[in-house]
């Protein structure tokens, strides 16, 4: 990946993402095509595929109290991948290969062990912040109206995930009037 292009690609999504799932960025920014729409969508799908695998792992080992919430989220994350794939393939993008859990665990070692409810939710919060930053970054890159719209609709859902997870953690679910996916 060209260094400058990758830097531009991650642009706004990069700030404040130095810990936890932010380290997943090297697994996301693999695509580079001549079309910024294809590049942005392939990288967005790759990020979503990572999120799906991470959530599947979390949901499989979660305590009963949060299993239902995580199951709902992982189902919606799978729907996001499908919803993003259709227009991406239509414009000539290729479906990225879903990552293996082991490749994600290298960057998010918390997934290697069974997490308590609060720890699992805290990781879910970080995953949602990671994906929101990525979707806002995609909004910067995309030029196709349909792609801007569908990534916006996905962003709305991920923002809702974040609010619900925060509330479950006992945090303020809407700490800011502008949801940036940043931790502060």
């Amino acid at each position: 990946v060209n260094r400058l292009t990758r830097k531009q690609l991650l642009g706004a999504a990069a700030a404040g993402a130095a810990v936890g799932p932010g380290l997943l960025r090297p697994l996301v920014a693999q695509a580079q095509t001549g079309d910024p729409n294809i590049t942005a969508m392939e990288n967005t799908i790759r990020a979503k595929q990572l999120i799906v695998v991470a959530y599947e792992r979390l949901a499989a080992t979660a305590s009963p109290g949060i299993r239902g919430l995580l199951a709902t989220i992982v189902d919606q994350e799978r729907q996001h991948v499908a919803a993003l794939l259709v227009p991406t393939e239509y414009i000539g993008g290729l479906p990225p290969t879903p990552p293996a859990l082991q490749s994600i665990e290298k960057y998010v070692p918390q997934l290697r062990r069974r997490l308590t409810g609060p720890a699992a939710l805290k990781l879910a919060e970080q995953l949602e912040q990671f994906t929101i930053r990525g979707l806002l970054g995609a909004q910067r890159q995309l030029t196709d109206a349909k792609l801007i719209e569908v990534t916006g609709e996905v962003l709305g859902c991920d923002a809702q995930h974040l609010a619900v997870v925060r509330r479950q953690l006992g945090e303020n679910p809407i700490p800011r009037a502008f949801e940036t996916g940043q931790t502060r």
Partner: protein
Amino acid sequence: LGAAGAGFVLAGCGSAADSGPLSDQLFADAAMLDSLLQQEYTLLAAYDHAIGRLSGSDRALAVAIRAQERNHADALAAQIRSRKVTPSSPAATYSLPALSGAAGALALLDRIEQQTIALYVDSLAKIGSVEVRVFAAQMMANEAQHASLLAAARRLPPLPTALVTGAP
């Protein structure tokens, strides 16, 4: 819109604040931002209308959301002014239904939040400035959170759909 600028009055809203020319894109973005501002004014009026019917945690939620809608309105107005256009003022009155109780108040707020989300989603692709688009996307994401919390307050699923489109 080639001559958009001097003394130009945006449909349904304010006017150019000076006599300098506005580029087509700046003008279009200012008009889009102003339509979002007018929707935020509607939201503020709805919250003012509904908060008196609410109590306890529902009231606290509505008050917190209203404060964020105020932030959105202020930020939108500032963005419009930065394009040398005068933003719209709130309407003198808003046509809002009589509320019989807390359930009706929450339902009204949810309905208008959904309308707001739909307007934001529709506006994203029409905004020419990338910075303004991201700004609008951040507010849209916050509106989606409001809708989720209002749904929970109504004992409805807080994550009802994978794609948040707002009301038709």
